């Protein structure tokens, strides 16, 4: 019983960390976007203010059961991914390292790939029940884009699996610790393919076709407000953090302490953000075909590289 209690507390600590970091990143991105656009931009803590405001609102209406389940599905995905992905590398010696182990030993890439789609699909159902056509259009776009970027992403992961004969995230981290080489250097093509897939995964321009503010009025989330939007916002932040940590774990050897974790994830996060700020938006078919072009080719190179070396 005590063990379960401690485990729960540790899981909550991880969640709070992910929430804080994810929200801060969101605010910082808004600030950076503002400065690049030659605006002042909101303060970095704006997202916290927004979240607090949303959470404290009361709701007068609801759209039916599936609408509730949609938000719950989304949160499940974020939390479960966060619990499975190792937040800190197993070799670290900081005093808080044991807090973030959670269920790392079970971290498995194929499981992650599928559980990561669980939330968007549930969210899609919830958006569907509201009856807002913009929501459904956003969902179909999002799913199409997912089919697009999943190809180079899976290719990169398969390349890693071929080289090291494992599907466990923690094994990949151990391999990087033992050999002293980050996998982004051990198989550069896999890293490039994964990063290109990441552009679609984080849905910044030119791949922001799901929300598409000027076309779809933020798409799937458009009928949500108050606590629903809060749930989605925090789930999105946690999920962003979890995905970044997964990238760091797989390609950059993980992080031994929180400072390194923040530095590495932030640097990685800046790739889609900075690329997005200066890009216009693709049409859906352009976006999907983009992923099936060069990223897929590089993914093939990664597999070839893994098979040959």
């Amino acid at each position: 019983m005590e063990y379960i209690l401690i485990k729960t507390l540790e899981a909550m600590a991880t969640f709070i960390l992910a929430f804080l970091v994810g929200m801060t990143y969101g605010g910082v991105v808004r600030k950076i976007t503002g400065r690049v656009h030659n605006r002042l931009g909101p303060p970095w803590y704006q997202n916290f203010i927004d979240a607090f405001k949303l959470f404290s609102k009361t709701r007068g209406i609801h759209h039916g059961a599936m609408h509730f389940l949609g938000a719950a599905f989304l949160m499940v995905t974020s939390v479960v991914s966060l619990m499975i992905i190792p937040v800190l590398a197993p070799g670290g010696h900081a005093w808080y390292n044991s807090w973030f182990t959670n269920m790392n030993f079970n971290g498995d890439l194929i499981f992650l790939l599928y559980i990561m789609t669980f939330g968007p699909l549930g969210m899609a159902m919830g958006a569907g029940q509201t009856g807002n056509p913009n929501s459904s259009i956003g969902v179909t776009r999002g799913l199409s884009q997912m089919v697009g970027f999943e190809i180079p992403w899976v290719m990169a992961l398969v390349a890693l699996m071929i080289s090291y004969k494992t599907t466990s995230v923690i094994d990949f981290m151990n391999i990087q610790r033992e050999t002293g080489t980050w996998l982004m250097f051990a198989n550069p093509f896999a890293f490039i393919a994964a990063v290109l897939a990441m552009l679609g995964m984080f849905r910044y321009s030119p791949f922001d076709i799901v929300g598409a503010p000027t076309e779809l009025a933020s798409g799937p989330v458009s009928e949500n407000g108050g606590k629903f939007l809060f749930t989605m916002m925090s789930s999105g932040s946690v999920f962003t953090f979890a995905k970044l940590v997964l990238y760091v774990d797989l390609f950059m050897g993980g992080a031994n302490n929180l400072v390194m974790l923040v530095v590495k994830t932030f640097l990685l996060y800046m790739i889609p953000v900075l690329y997005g700020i200066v890009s216009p938006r693709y049409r859906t078919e352009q976006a999907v075909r983009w992923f099936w072009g060069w990223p897929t080719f590089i993914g093939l190179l990664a597999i070839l590289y893994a098979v040959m070396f």
Partner: protein
Amino acid sequence: MDMITLILLLFLGGAIVTWLGGKLSPIVGDMLFLVTIIVPAGMFFTGVTVGEVTHLHALGLTLTWGLSPLSYLFSMIVVGLGILLAIYAVPFMKGKQKTGAFYFNFTLSVMAMLGILVSKDWVSFFIFWEIMTWSSYLMVILNGKDVQRVGIKYFIFSAIGAYAMLMAMVVMNSQLGSFLMADTFNNFQHLTVGNQILIPILLLTAFGVKSAMMPLHVWAPDAYSNAPMAYTGLFSGALSKMGIYGMVLVMVTMINQLPEGTLIRDIIAWMGGFTAAAATLWAITQDDGKKLLAWSSVGQMGYIIVGVAIGTPLAMLAALFLVVVHAMFKGSLFMVVGAIEKQTGTTDFREINGLIRKMPWTFISALISVIALAGIPPLAGFVSKWMLYEALIQNNNYILVILLFFASTAGFLYCYKFLHGYFLGQEEPEWAHVKEAPAAMVIPMLLLAIGTFVLGTFPQLLFKPIDSALQYVGYDATGGHLWGQSILFSEWGDIVTLQPILYVVLAVFVFFALFLWFKGTKGTRYVSTKDISTSGELPKEWENLTFKVNFMQPFERTIEPFLKRQIDKYYTAFGNGLEALFEFTRRIYTGNGQTYAIYAILFLALLLLFRVNLFG
């Protein structure tokens, strides 16, 4: 008389009695139908033991019937799905035409499938195979729609498969002198090399047709969607699995003995992978739920074929797991479509809207089944997909993994299209009268959906029969079982490594669902789907907010170049070419006595002309 013969005879006699009883009164027919299915099925569950063999002397031949662990696994699908679909079929067929013919063919199909599974010799295998094909053919054309196009297509492909199988049987019998399956498998090495390659290919053609492997699949989407939905569950869930059953037999007995076996395996696996990917893309473009599920069935069979063709213990385990699970979730989904057809009269996504609040139980079954279909944990679809990927990576089939991943991800699109098409979106006043389907229809589909959940959490329930089936066909199990080869499972076959995660998924899900539910519904009112804010503007009553037509248009645009290529067109072109040839032949054989007289005279004239050359 022994049990197996008795059960088959009960099915056969019951089919006829049901048909005759239905003439008296519909209720008698319904009752007799249920009794006909459930009584022999119950006898099968209780009375038949694995391994018992019986001989039947008929027509100067000895027919050998018996139940092996492999056929036991498949017969569980046939019998289980048969019972549930029979219960479902009675309210489904209520008030419809040709109920008697439906019951007759349904029972006959179940009997024929059981017959195939218990056959130990090729003669009875072929006879039951033909009964199965004929009964399903009569089901496909039961509603009288598109008989020319759909029925003929199914018939021609079934005939190709049947002739291929017949030819293989005859060659085996003439060379080896036995119709017994065991003899033909054991003496396979005594055949000439040409026959050793010819026979498996002929048999794989026959089984490939039934399991709708590309490029032999063209009959399947139309046939699946044209048959009554209460039968399509059996058609896609069990009948197509007979092809897989045959494929497993051929793969493990014949192909294994061939030096060229690996090449054949690779070709079949690639055909399966291509089937999975291409059929998924076609499913996305469908606007009719029946057609969508039909294409999806073809795609899922592709996964199974990949597993069977790869043929490592883990791949076989995954394939057979998916065989059972696919029967469950696809059975449930076809029942959902049938219920919707029954309650609304149509299955077109573009016509039906927002049934979620009118048919909640149907929706729940559909949701669970779709999650299983998509392969999302913790449902059973995930277990089989996981093992399949693991097997493929171990076997160095990397590109095939990517192909299957692609198919699986693209599968989400049609999954969403299916759910959104029927249950979500705007609620139209046109469908305000729709009520939930009768309990006899809802309960079977719900049971199947829950079954996928149970198998996802306790896969060892299914691993044990699969394991004994695989050991029977000759897989060596180190340590007594095969599932230990997957890192997913512990020694006992329960998902030990994943179990905690599954519980966490459930716990977190329940927590957030309850949280949002209590927070969300307390003191709030439900708003209709018209009462929404689109960008802050309240839509007017007359505004059409329905989004159904061209639902997946962006994606369809993306894959447009691919969709232009259809094997169907080539078959049609081939058929047209044949017709032109026949047309030419008809000019010679005009059927006119005068023409034939001219031929005779011309022939004689030629004889006279060349008499020196011919007769010296």
